[in-house]
C-alpha cells in the first residue's frame, strides 16, 4: 500500500497528490485555528472583560457574522480527511472517542447559544447561555490543543491501524500544557480581535487584559516548546526546519507584545495570528510524512502514503478544491470587509 502517487503535471510541483492533500488539510486546520481561534477568544472574553449585558452583546456581535463560517473550516478539514486519508479519519475519530463527544457537545452548545441568548431578556436565560458560551469557548481550544499534542507525542496504534488509547495516553502533563497553551493563545488573539472591533472602555479593557496575558502566554509556549524538544522526536526528525519555526514564533510573539504596548491592535492581532499559524504549521511539519505517530514503533505509523485514498479520488478532489477555493476565500474576505467597522454600544445589535 506504500505507493506515492505521482502524475505528469506534478513534475512542476514536487509533491505527490497525497502530499498535496496533507498540505491542504494542514492549511485548513491552520486557517481554522487562526479564524475560529479569535472567536473562541472573544467567547471566553465575554466572561472576563464585559461588565454589562450590553457590552457582552457587543462582544458577541463583533464575531456574529463570522463564527459560523470560521467553524466550517473545521468541518471542511474533517471532510477532507475523510476523503483524502480515510484511515487517518477513521483511526483518529474512533480513537479519540470520548474527547470528541465533549467537543461535539461544546460545539452544539456554543452554536445555539449565540443564536438563542438574546431571544429573551430574562436574567436566568441569558446567564445560562452566557456560561455555555464562556465554558465551551475555553473547552474547545483546550481539547483541540490536547489532541494535537498527542499527535506529536505518539499514540498506541496497532497493526490494524486501530488506536487503543487509555486515559493517560491522551491526558498527561505534555498534552495538558499543549491544551492550556492553545487556550491562552486563543484568548489573547480574541481579546485583540475584540479591541479591533469595539470602541471606548471595552476596547481599552481588551487591550489591557491582552497586555497582562502576554508574559504568561510566552512562558507557557516556551515550556511547551521545551517539552516538545525532550518528549517527542519531531526536532530530531525535522531538525533545522522546526528550529526556524520556533525562532519565527518567538519573534512574532515578541512583536505582538510590542504592538499591544503601542496600542496598535491591528498589527498585534496579525502577530498573534502568526503565532497560531506557526504553532500549528509546526505540528504538521513535525509529523510529515506521518499523519499519526504510533508509540509502538515507526512500522505502525499512519503516513500520507498508507492512509491515503486512491490516485483517482485525490485527483478529482484536487480539481474540485482548486476550482472552488478562490471563490470561498473571495466571499469570506468580502464579508470581513463588509463588517470591518467598529461596533459601539449604541449600534443595533442582532445577537
Amino acid at each position, binding site marked *: 500500500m506504500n505507493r506515492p502517487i505521482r502524475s505528469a503535471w506534478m513534475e512542476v510541483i514536487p509533491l505527490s497528490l497525497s502530499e498535496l492533500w496533507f498540505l491542504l488539510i494542514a492549511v485548513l486546520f491552520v486557517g481554522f485555528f487562526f479564524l475560529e481561534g479569535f472567536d473562541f477568544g472573544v467567547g471566553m472574553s465575554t466572561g472576563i472583560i464585559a*461588565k454589562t*449585558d450590553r457590552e457582552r452583546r457587543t462582544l458577541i456581535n463583533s464575531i456574529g457574522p463570522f463564527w459560523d463560517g470560521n467553524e466550517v473550516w473545521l468541518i471542511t478539514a474533517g471532510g477532507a480527511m475523510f476523503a483524502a486519508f480515510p484511515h487517518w*479519519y477513521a483511526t483518529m475519530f474512533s480513537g479519540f472517542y470520548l474527547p470528541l463527544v465533549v467537543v461535539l457537545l461544546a*460545539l452544539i452548545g456554543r452554536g*445555539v447559544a449565540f443564536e438563542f441568548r438574546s431571544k*429573551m431578556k430574562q436574567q436566568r436565560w441569558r446567564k445560562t447561555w452566557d456560561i455555555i458560551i464562556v465554558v465551551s469557548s475555553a473547552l474547545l481550544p483546550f481539547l483541540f490543543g490536547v489532541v494535537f499534542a498527542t499527535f506529536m507525542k505518539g499514540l498506541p496504534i496497532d497493526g490494524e491501524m486501530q488506536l487503543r488509547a487509555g486515559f493517560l495516553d491522551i491526558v498527561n502533563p505534555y498534552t495538558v500544557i499543549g491544551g492550556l497553551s492553545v487556550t491562552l493563545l486563543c484568548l489573547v488573539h480574541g481579546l485583540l480581535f475584540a479591541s479591533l472591533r469595539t470602541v471606548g472602555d471595552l476596547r481599552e479593557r481588551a487591550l489591557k487584559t491582552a497586555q497582562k496575558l502576554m508574559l504568561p502566554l510566552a512562558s507557557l509556549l516556551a515550556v511547551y516548546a521545551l517539552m516538545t524538544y525532550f518528549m517527542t522526536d519531531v526536532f530530531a526528525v525535522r531538525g533545522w526546519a522546526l528550529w526556524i519555526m520556533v525562532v519565527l514564533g518567538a519573534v512574532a510573539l515578541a512583536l505582538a507584545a510590542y504592538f499591544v504596548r503601542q496600542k496598535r491592535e491591528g498589527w498585534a492581532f496579525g502577530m498573534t495570528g502568526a503565532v497560531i499559524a506557526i504553532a500549528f504549521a509546526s505540528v504538521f511539519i513535525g509529523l510529515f510524512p506521518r499523519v499519526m505517530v504510533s508509540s509502538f514503533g515507526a512500522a505502525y505509523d499512519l503516513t500520507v502514503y498508507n492512509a491515503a485514498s486512491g490516485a483517482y479520488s485525490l485527483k478529482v478532489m484536487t480539481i474540485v478544491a482548486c476550482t*472552488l477555493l478562490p471563490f470561498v476565500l473571495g466571499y*469570506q474576505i468580502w*464579508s470581513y470587509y463588509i463588517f470591518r467597522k467598529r461596533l459601539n454600544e449604541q449600534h443595533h445589535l442582532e445577537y
Partner: protein
Amino acid sequence: MDPIMLSRIQYALTTIFHFFFVPLSIGLVLLVAIMETLYVVKGKEIYKTMAKFWGKLFLINFAVGVVTGILQEFQFGMNWSEYSRFVGDVFGAPLAIEALLAFFMESTFIGLWIFGWDRLSKKVHLACIWLVFVGTFLSALWILAANSFMQHPVGFEINNGRAEMNDFFALITNGQLLVEFPHTIFGALMTGAFVVTGISAYKLMKKQDVEIFRKSFNIAIIIALVSSFGVAFSGHFQAQYLVETQPMKMAASEGTWTTTEDPAPWTVVAFIDPDKQESTGEIKIPGLLSYLSYSKFSGSVKGMKELNAEYQQTYGPGDYIPPVRTTFWSFRIMIAAGGLMIVLALYGTFLAVRKKLEVAGKWFMRLMVFAISLPFIANTSGWIMTEVGRQPWTVFGYMTTEAGVSPNVSAGMILFSTIAFTAAYTVLGIVMVYLFVREIKAGPFAVDKPEDHDESADPFGVDGGYSVVTK
C-alpha cells in the same frame, strides 16, 4: 447491549433529529427569499416585515440544523470507523465537496444576511438570501450523492479490500441520486410550506396581523401545492427505480413474502409475521402494485423469500430480509401523510384563489395547524423506510452494517455518548419549540424595540452581581 445495536440506535436518533431541521431550513429559506424578492420588486414594506418574521423562525431552526449536522459528519469516524475505511475514498469526496461548496456559502451569506440589513444595498442583501438557498440546495445534493452510493454503489472498484473511486461522473449521475434528490427537495419545500401555512392559519384564526398572514398563506399554499405533486411524482419514479435496484426493499415495504400474481395487487394494510414469514388479513387493491412498479397493469413483483434465496447464492449464507414491519408501515405512514397533504394543498389553494380563506370556517384553519406535523411525519418515515429497508447492508451488496462498526470503541462509550447526545438534543428540541411558539405569539411587529434600560448581571464578576443601568 452490544456496540452494533447501540451505534445503530445512536445513528437513527441523531439522524432523525437532524432531519427535522434540514428540510424545514430548505423550505423556509426559499419562502423568505421569495418574500424578500417581492419586497425588492414591489417596494412594499409589508414584504420586508414578512421576510424578517419568517427569517427569525428560519434562523432559530437553522442554528439547530447546523450544530446537529456537525455531529453527523463526526459520527462516521467515531462509531463506524471500518465503514469509513472501506468507503472513505468514494463516500468522503461528496462530504468534503459539500463542506467546500455548500457550507461555506451558507454560513458566510447567512452572516451577511443577518447582520447586513443596514450595510448592504437591497439587491445585494437579497442576493445573499438566495445564495443561502442555493447553499442548502447544494448541501442536500452532495449529501444525497453520498447516500445514493450506499443505496446503489456505482463509480468504484474494490482495491486492497477498499472501495476506490474510478468514475466521479458515475457517482454524481447515479440513477438513485436522480430519483432521490427531487423527492427529498420537494419534501423539504413542502415542509417549509406547511409550516408557514399552518402558522398563518393559526394567526388568521386569531385575527392577528391579518394582511401579513393572509399573504404568507397565499404564497406558501402555492409552494405546498406544487411541491406536494412533485413529491408524489418523484416518489413514484423512485419506487420504480427501487424495484430494479433494491427489489428486497420494495418487497419488504409491500410485505410481499412470495412472488405476486400478475398483475400484482397493492396491499393497503396487513398483519405481518416475520417469524412465520407470512402476512395475513391483507386488504388489497388489484393491479396497483404492477402499475406503481412498471407503469402498466401487468407484471408480477418478486417476494422476499425468492429474493433471499437469490441473495444467498450471490453473497453467501445469511439473512438478507430487512425488518419487514418497520419498512412496511413507515412506507404506508409516508404515503398517508403525503396523500393528506395533497388534498389539503388542493383545497387550500382553491380557497385562496377564491379569496374565501377566512370565510371557509375555522375547521379548515384548524386542520392546517395540525397539518404542520404531516411533513415531519412523512420525512421521517420516508427516511426510515429508505435506511431500514436497505438492511442488513450499509453499502448495498458490499458491506453489511455490522461490519462497519468501530472495533476499538466499547459499548459503554457508545452508551455514554448516546445518552449525552439524546439529553442535549432533548433540551435543544424543547428550547427550539418554546422559542418558536414565543416568536409566533409575539408576531411580526415585536421587532427589537430600543431597550430603554439595560439589565445586566455579570455571572463571572466578583459579586456575581446584578445591576440595572438606566439610560
